[in-house]
C-alpha cells in the first residue's frame, strides 16, 4: 500500500508541481494514474520512489515512511522509469546482475526469475548483448525485468506501455493483473486511456498537481451521471479545470 498525505512539491521556488496531494493506493488493485502532460504524474511517482524529496507531507509505503527509512521503502518497490535509455554500455545480463545485487536477490532466485522473464518477453538470446544495441521496446523489457527481480510488493510503472509490441504489452498487462490478484500493489501512469479503461480497478486523475478524481470507473460515471467512455470523462474533467 502506498499513502501520500498532504504532499507538495515546488520546482525552483515558484512552479507548484504537486499541490497538497492526498492519495491512498491499496494492495490487490491495479491503480491507474492519469493526467495531461505536465500534470504532476512523474513528479508524484519520483517522490514515492525516493528520486525527489517532497517539500512537505508524508509518503508511506507499506506503512514505512520514506523519510525515516528510505532504503527499507526502496527495497519494497520495483520501479520502471519512463525512459529506458540507461546503462547502455552494459550487457542486458550485466544490468540485471547489477540490479539483483542492489536489491540483494540470491543467486538462485535471480537465475530463476531472469529465466522466466526472459522467456516471457522473448529476450533469451539478447541478454549477452549490450543494451546499446537494443531497440526501444527491448530496452523497456530489460528495465521491466530488472524491476521484478526482487519480487516487489509494490510495483510502480511510469508510462510502461510505450514502445512495447502487442505481445509484450499483453504479457505486461497480464503480469500486472497477476500481481494485483496476489494482493500486491500495482501503480502505473499512462496516457493511453483505452489501456487504463481495460485494466484498471481504480484510477486517479491529476491535473496541475491536484487530484481531480479518485475511484473506480463506475464511480466516475456515476458522479458525472453520464455513461461515457473514460476518454470523454477525462476530457471533461481536465477541461473544466482549464
Amino acid at each position, binding site marked *: 500500500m502506498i499513502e501520500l498525505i498532504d504532499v507538495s512539491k515546488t520546482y525552483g521556488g515558484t512552479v507548484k508541481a504537486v499541490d497538497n496531494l492526498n492519495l491512498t493506493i491499496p494492495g490487490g488493485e491495479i491503480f491507474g494514474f492519469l493526467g495531461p502532460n505536465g500534470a504532476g504524474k512523474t513528479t508524484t511517482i*519520483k517522490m514515492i*520512489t*525516493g*528520486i*525527489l*524529496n517532497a517539500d512537505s507531507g508524508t509518503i508511506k509505503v507499506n506503512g514505512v515512511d520514506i523519510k525515516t527509512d528510505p*532504503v*527499507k*521503502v*526502496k*527495497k519494497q*518497490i520495483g*520501479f520502471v*522509469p519512463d525512459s529506458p535509455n*540507461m*546503462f547502455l*554500455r*552494459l*550487457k542486458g*545480463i*550485466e544490468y*540485471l*546482475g*547489477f*540490479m*539483483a*545485487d*542492489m*536489491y*540483494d*536477490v*540470491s*543467486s538462485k532466485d*535471480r*537465475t530463476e526469475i*531472469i529465466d522466466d522473464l526472459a522467456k516471457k518477453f522473448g529476450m*533469451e*538470446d*539478447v*541478454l*549477452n*548483448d*549490450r543494451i*546499446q*544495441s*537494443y*531497440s526501444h521496446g527491448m530496452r523497456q523489457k530489460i528495465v521491466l525485468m530488472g524491476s521484478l527481480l526482487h519480487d516487489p510488493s509494490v510495483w510502480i510503472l511510469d508510462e510502461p506501455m510505450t514502445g512495447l509490441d502487442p505481445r509484450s504489452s499483453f504479457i505486461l498487462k497480464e503480469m500486472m493483473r497477476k500481481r494485483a490478484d496476489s494482493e500486491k500493489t500495482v501503480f502505473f501512469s499512462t496516457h493511453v486511456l483505452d489501456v487504463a479503461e481495460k485494466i484498471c480497478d481504480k484510477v486517479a486523475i491529476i491535473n496541475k498537481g491536484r487530484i481531480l478524481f479518485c475511484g473506480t470507473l463506475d464511480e466516475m460515471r456515476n458522479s458525472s451521471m453520464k455513461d461515457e467512455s473514460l476518454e470523454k470523462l477525462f476530457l471533461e474533467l481536465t477541461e473544466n479545470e482549464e
Partner: protein
Amino acid sequence: MKNKMLLLTRTLLKNGEGFGIKGMKNKVSKVLFALMLIIILPGLVVMFSFFVNSAYSALAVIGQEGVIISWGIAITSTVILLFGIFYIAASFYFSRDVEVLLYLPLKPRQIVGAKFLTAAIFEYIITAAVFLPAVIVYGIRSAVGIVFYLYSFVVFVFIPVVPLCLASVLVMILMRFTNASKHKDTFSIIGGTLALLLGMGINIVMQRFIVNINLQELEALITKGENTLALLTSGIFPTARWAVSALLDTATAAGFLNLLLYAAASAAVYIFLLFLGEKVYIKGVVGLSESVSKRNKQNKAEERDKFLKKHSALRTYTMLELKLLFRTPIYFLNCVIVNFIWPVLLLIYMVMGTEGADMQGMVKQLIINTDNAGTIFLFGIAMFAFVAGFNGTVSTSISREGQELFVKKYIPVSYRTQILAKVLSGFILSIAGAVFMLIAATAVFKLPLYISLLILVAGWMGTLLISFFEILLDLYNPKLDWDSEQKAVKQNMNVVYSMVISSIVGGLTIYAAAQFSPGIITAALSAVLIYGGLNVLVYFLLCKKGVERFKQLEG
C-alpha cells in the same frame, strides 16, 4: 559526377561537418569558436615559430637549416595522419549523416570524395599551425625570394592530401575487412590511446631535438644521415621528398619539376582513393546501423552464471563504475589513461634533456645520502596524492551520472555505500597509476627498495585523502546537465579544483620534508599520523555532510 561531389562537399560543410558548428546554437559558442580561430591559431603559429627559430639558429651553424623544411613537412604529415585516422573514421563511418547519404542517388566515390574534401579543409588548420612556422622562419632567416613563398603555398595546398588519403585507405580497409565499424567505442578507445602515445612520442622527439639541442649530438646525427623522424616520415610519405626538394631549390628547373611531381603524385593518390572508395566504402558502411550482437545461445548459460553470482552491493557498484570508465571512450581517455600519462610525462621530464639530467642527478644525490630517506619517503607520499588529484575519476563521479542520477536515487542502497563505491573505483585507478609511477621511479632513480616499500605501504593514505576531497567537491558542485559525455569530464571545473587541492596537500608534504628533513622513522610516523588523522576526519565529514548532500541532489 564532379558537380554532385562538390555540391555534397558544400552541403556537408554547411551542415557543420569539420568544425562542429552544427551544434553551436547560440552566439556565444560561435564567438568563442571565432576567437579560437583568431587568437589560438596565430598563437600556436607564433609558439611553434619560436621553437623553429631556435632550431634554425643551431642548424645554421652546421649549414643544415634546410632540415627545418623537411621537419616541417614531416611533422605536419604525421600529425595529419594521426588526427586523420580518427577524423576519417568519425566522418566516413560513425557520422549520423551516413545513413541519409546511403539512400541518396550518389556513387560511393562521390560520398568518399566529398567527405575527404571536408576533412581536408579541417586539416588545413593543423597544417597552418605546424607547417607555416617552418615556412615563415626559414623564409625570413634565409632571406629567400618570392618563388619560395609561391612554392610553399602550392605545397601547403597539397600537404594534407597524401597523409589524409593514407588515413582514409587504412580506415576503409579496416572497416571493410574487420568489424571495427560495429565497435565504435573500441575504435575510439584504441585510436585515442594511440593518438595520445604518438602525441607523447612527438613531444619527446621535439624535446630531444629542438628544445635541448646539443650541437655535437645534432651534428653527429645529421652527418650520419637524416634524423630519424624525417627518415621515418619520408618512408611513410615518399612524396614529401619532392616537396622538400622543391622548396629548397627554388632557383632551378629541377625545383619546379619536383613541385610538379609533388602535385601530380598527390592528385594521383587522391584519384586512387576515389577508386578504392568506389570498391570498398559501401561494403564497410552498409549494416553499420545494425546492432552488434552475437544472438547465439552458445555459452549462454556459462556467461549468465558469471553475471548472476551474488555479490555485495559495494563490490558490484564499484565494478559498475570501473566498467563504465573503461567502456566509455571519453572517460577511458580522461580518467583511466591520464592516470598513467601524467606519471610518464613527469618521469620523461626528469630523465630527459639538460634540466632533466640536473634533476635526476639531484635526486640520485639525495638518495645516496641515507639521512635523506625520510625526505624521499615524504616525496613519495606527496606523489601518491598528486596522481590521485590529476585524474578526473572521483572528482567527476557524480557529474558522470548526468541524467541517469535518478537510478542511483531509487535503488535501495544507502548513499554512504554509493559514495564509498565511487571513491573506491577512483582509488583503485589512482593507486594503479601511483604504483606504476613508483616502480618507474624506483628503476630510474635507483630508489632503495625499503623506501619504495614504505611508500607503497603508506602512500594509499594520500590517495584516499584526495579521493575523499574529490567526492565532496563533486557532491557539492556536480555537473549533471550535459548532453555529451565529453562535457561531464572535459568541461568540468572539478577536475581543475581537485588538481589544486592535491597540489596543496602534496606541496605541503614536500615543504615539510624540505623544511624539517626528518629521519625515516619520524617521517613515516608523522605521515601516518597526519594523513591517517585527516582521512578519519574527512571520512566522518563525508558520511555526514556528503550523504546529506547526495540526498538533496535531484538530477
